């Protein structure tokens, strides 16, 4: 029943060569990459981070004592955000996570995240937020086309995002150049 040895040995040589080739092809490695995390957690962390790199017009905080993140159609992200916020602050305000449903009032909301659970009604939801000082963030392929300002994409196992400036300008939001630099793609006005 001797079957494998001889051809397998020469084949193993071929594999070693192939492995080397793969290693060369892949090119230089980045300096360091952190431990993997769940997609939900990374997106939640981004939603919190965005606050530091966007400037709202002063009236967005008139009479407000909270930085409000509204979440629609993404319970897991809302849960992750609730775990994350703790004692953290954005622009000096404590953070409030508000779970919203389509049609709910967007008064006092600074960041609106619409998850894939609501991707069917995206255009309608975003139209309700248009031209108000609300940073609209989405999680679906049609996001930017529907009027979103920031849209998440998963690429090469990393959570990245694209930015569309025209709706942000209509909302009088200023997006920092550092955020633009990290974006995968920026649609200019």
């Amino acid at each position, binding site marked *: 029943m001797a079957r494998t040895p001889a051809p*397998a040995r020469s084949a193993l040589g071929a594999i070693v060569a192939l492995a080397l080739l793969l290693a060369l092809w892949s090119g230089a490695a980045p300096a360091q990459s952190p431990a993997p995390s769940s997609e939900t957690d990374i997106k939640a962390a981004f939603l919190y981070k965005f606050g530091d790199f966007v400037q709202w017009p002063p009236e967005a905080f008139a009479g407000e004592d909270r930085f409000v993140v509204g979440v629609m159609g993404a319970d897991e992200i809302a849960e992750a955000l609730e775990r994350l916020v703790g004692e953290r602050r954005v622009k000096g305000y404590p953070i409030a996570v508000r779970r919203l449903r389509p049609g709910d009032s967007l008064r006092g909301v600074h960041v609106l995240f619409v998850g894939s659970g609501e991707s069917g009604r995206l255009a309608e939801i975003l139209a309700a937020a248009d031209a108000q000082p609300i940073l609209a963030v989405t999680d679906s392929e049609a996001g930017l086309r529907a009027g979103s300002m920031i849209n998440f994409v998963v690429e090469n196992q990393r959570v990245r995002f694209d930015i569309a400036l025209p709706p942000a300008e209509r909302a009088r939001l200023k997006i920092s150049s550092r955020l633009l630099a990290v974006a995968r793609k920026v649609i200019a006005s």
Partner: protein
Amino acid sequence: MPRRRWHAASIALFVCAAARAQGDIASLADLSLEELANVPVTSVTRRPEPLKDAAASIYVITAEEIRRSGVRTLPEALRLAPNLTVARIDAGQYAITARGFNNAVGNKLLVLVDGRTLYTPVFSGVFWDQQDVVLEDVERIEVISGPGATLWGANAVNGVINVITKSSSDTLGTLAAGGIGNRDRLALARYGGRLSGDATYRIYGKYSDARENEKEDGTRAFDGRAFTQVGFRVDARSGPGRFTLQGDAYELRGQDRVLGTLNLGALDASGGNLLARYNHRLGEGSEVQLQAYVDHMARRDSVVLHPTVDTVDLEAQHALAFGRHRLVYGAGYRASHDDEEPAFFSVFVPPSDTLEWWNVFAQDEIALSEALTLTAGAKVERNDYTGEEFLPSVRLGWRVSPSHFLWTSLSRAVRSPSRFDRAVASPAFPVAAGPDFVSEVAKVYELGYRASVSRLSFSATAFLHEWDRLRSGTPPPLVLENKISGRMSGTEMWATLQASERLRITGGLTTLHDDLQLDPTSTDPFGTENVTLRNDPSRQWTLRASLDMSERQELQAALRHVSALPAPELDAYTALDLRYAWRPSKRVELSVVGENLLDPRHPEFATSAAPPVELRRSVFVAVRFSGF
């Protein structure tokens, strides 16, 4: 042992992570924007990874790994888990296990698809040739080697495979895929849509077939097959409630098997299932889950087993968190009715029976300190043959530092008797079931270590299973007894290296050492060499490299080695699979997969002294379209 007393302490493998998730996500929030954009995603999932930090030997097969491997059936996807032994017996049948006792009728592994167990009460194992899913719709497959009996019950002795498909809200739109190769073909289509703002659905159909193989001596294997499956899933949300309804129906068609001038007929099967599940959030960390399903299957095989089985299964559980505790408790009931037609190798007496199982379980995870977590729990399961079985476990996890985790566990698990053990007879051989056959029992000790340092993640587990009352026989007329005992020990290791942004390398190694003895009072002529006991390799390793050649092209190479099988003897083999994929546009992917490339043909498993079926080198080209 206090069997009847309800031991309320317990663990929750699946609530485990919640306590620590807080730490994980807080550390993410402290990263810079640029660092955050570079954090790899563990799996492309929208739910938290629940088993990530559990004190158990767990490998999670991600949707991404399945996609990159180009596998086309569920059993083939299981090869991606380094802690499983997957041996293809012929075109459709597999022997799959963890930690030994691999066998065509392997009975020590529990397999679930979306909470529905695939186990058949006929022999306590899985008819792998009747199981498939649309792999594109799989969110992840959790593979736990070692006992999971405290949560999942008898049969989860050597491992648990938990296949979790995506919510239909994550599979909106159209998917169509097809492929053709020299050994098999595939066609599938899925459509997902919205019923209302809060309800989504998907429907799918999948067809696959495989060509007949030859045995080692050049004779025909008669294993050609065609498998068709259709199904649906509906998910709805309403406030704190989530509801899922799903179902599948399938048909397997084999080819006529001819022995000389005798036509034994084809191996055909059909079946279906319908499952409903409701989750309700009661408050922070508190959730109730209710689940019910029915499952029907009919297997028409005049040679080995010819059963029709109907199963009803009900389950309720409540998970809650208070103070330092994360508690989950619940109860379940299952009833299964089977009708066994006589086959060449098996006749059942009585030919038809109804079996019932009851269980209650509780498991508590206690944060002893910031770094130490104790998980303790037990399940009491009642079956009609042996009464109550007590299935306790204790696990201790120690987060030594943010990137190092040590754990250890002690558990007791049983494989309770199946219809086969208690009711089989054989017209071909003088065989009789064992009227006194009782549960096979394992006491399991485990020690594990996990690390995640920079671009490398690593897991190592050492295990010792002390077995008692394993199945043995007597000289003809064969009567089944419980007279084998001994130890199975070994190690499981795997590591993943994200070598660069574009190259990921995963390697795995398992070793197994068995030391089984026949009781001196036994008269079993085969002893521990009995072919229905086990035929395990002492060593296997896998090495997989995935490379993104460009935004649109990817390459994967997977190499695996399985050492020789002892009885019936089979040579070691090494197999290489390669896949290249190209996406000419966002919606279209073309790929070519080569499997078993190192030799023209080899067998992977031998079930008897008869020549084993050889699997050939194969090439498969596929196209996939996704759109709205």
